[in-house]
């Protein structure tokens, strides 16, 4: 697998505020890499730095294993912050400017416009576009010149539910075409639905980096159980070797188990102790809880 982007110890301060503090991560080819964090955590700063819009104070980054930035950037499609275009130009003319900058022809513009559902409105001026259409044009711009990498910054910001669903489908389609995607978002749900890897940012530094799966399953899972005699259940279950802790919550007993203990083992153990369960369910920690927990603990 080849490395698309390698960021090492990048720092950037705006006055006293550290917008990026020793940021390091690596994006491999084909990743859908999420950069997740609350507003003001430094997501956009990082994207600005890796697209040459902002100079880092220190640290370095490299694209495509040391391709010079000015050359690399032509192989990257990006919209950072809000989609920015010339309001007095039509959607199509705005894309033609992008195509000229990227030094590629105009022939794919119509296909791309159809792909994002803007073909019928391509001759309308950008300033007449709705928020959703502006975002679509932004995504269309990132696809011009058949880039290897697409960078999207809060692509569903300000959209209605239908618009959000549409944009997500477009993103998934882009991902299927084999491109690497870097997606900044403060919406966990979005990252969980779309991304393969994630870095979580908090006030300028990374507090978690890894695959989305490892994020959801990194900690032990919780099993809910219940039976007619809750006290006995609690006593027996605490004695079980695979159990880390158990506590009562309403009518249920919540059991935290070690990593590789499955509900079947637990159930057969309890039956051997003469307890028949009336309720057994896995409670997988949602990514949202995980995220909030990470934000709380890693000060």
């Amino acid at each position: 697998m080849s490395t698309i982007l390698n960021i090492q110890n990048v720092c950037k301060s705006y006055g006293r505020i550290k917008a990026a503090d020793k940021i390091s991560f690596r994006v491999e080819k084909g990743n859908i890499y999420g950069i997740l964090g609350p507003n003001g955590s430094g997501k956009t700063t990082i994207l600005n730095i890796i697209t040459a819009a902002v100079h880092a104070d220190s640290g370095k980054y490299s694209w495509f294993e040391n391709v010079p930035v000015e050359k690399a950037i032509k192989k990257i499609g990006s919209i950072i912050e809000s989609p920015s275009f010339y309001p007095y130009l039509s959607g199509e003319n705005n894309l033609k400017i992008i195509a000229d900058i990227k030094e590629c022809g105009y022939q794919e513009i119509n296909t791309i416009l159809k792909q994002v559902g803007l073909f019928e409105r391509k001759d309308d001026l950008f300033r007449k576009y709705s928020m959703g259409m502006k975002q679509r044009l932004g995504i269309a711009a990132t696809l011009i010149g058949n880039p290897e990498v697409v960078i999207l910054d809060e692509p569903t910001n300000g959209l209605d539910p239908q618009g959000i669903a549409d944009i997500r489908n477009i993103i998934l389609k882009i991902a299927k075409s084999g491109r690497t995607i870097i997606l900044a978002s403060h919406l966990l749900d979005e990252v969980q639905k779309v991304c393969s890897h994630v870095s979580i940012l908090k006030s300028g530094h990374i507090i978690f980096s890894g695959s989305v799966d490892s994020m959801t399953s990194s900690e032990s899972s919780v099993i809910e159980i219940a039976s007619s005699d809750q006290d006995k259940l609690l006593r027996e279950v605490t004695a079980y070797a695979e159990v880390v802790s158990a506590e009562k919550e309403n009518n249920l007993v919540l059991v935290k188990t070690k990593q590789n203990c499955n509900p079947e083992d637990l159930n057969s153990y309890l039956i051997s102790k003469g307890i028949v369960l009336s309720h057994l369910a896995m409670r997988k920690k949602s990514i949202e809880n995980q995220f909030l927990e990470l934000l709380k603990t890693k000060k």
Partner: protein
Amino acid sequence: MIRLLKIELRKIIYNRTFWILTALYIVLYILVILGLQSFIGNINVNGTKLFKNLPVYRFPDIWHNITYIGSFFKLIPAFLVVIFITNEYSFNTIKQNITTGLSRNEFVFSKVIFIILYSTMSLLIVTLTGFIFGYSCSKPEDMSKIHEGMIFLLGHYLQLLNYLSLALLISVIIRKAGLTIVLLLAYSYIIEPILTFKLPDKIAYYFPVKLINNLITIPFKKYIVGLSFQTTIPFTDMMVSVVYFAAFIFLTLIVIRKRDL
């Protein structure tokens, strides 16, 4: 180069402000030239109209006269430069251009191309106006002197390149249209005159706006017997003007390269 030109032209030709201001620039300029003879002819000195029937439109006087009028109109293209540069900031398209793959140098060069194009267009219009008025008003004996004073056309070109590149520099520093226009005007008509007020003439002469104005000074003095008047543009002045043009662009490059977007 062609690529930068293509990008810049697309930004311009669909812009209504560009066409309105350009039309205004050309129409107002030609109107003032048309009215020039009768305006000067109507000047009253002690009850007599001294300057009636002067060879204002005849070769070779026409070149100096129309380029002098042209120097007053350089504000309109300067405003266009300010509007187009500050638009890039207010639409945030400068950042989009650069993150898409236009280098910072290329961005500045595309604006320099605009300045050169517009100055060239203006030069063509002034030259054409000069020929039209010259040919239709000159006497047969003037025709031998048609080339005299054509150096003022070069002066007009340098004036524009110079002033527009100053407008470019102030625009990229300030980034807001209104403030840039106020500052450009204030510098040209208030700040520099105050700065140079107490300075010896030799130094004051080479301040940017003063130098731009000195390339073409008032031509009508030649119609008053006994006053000395400008017949040509000193070579050093033209060289200094070119140096200013290069310096303003160089400073613009530095500002754009250093600054975050």
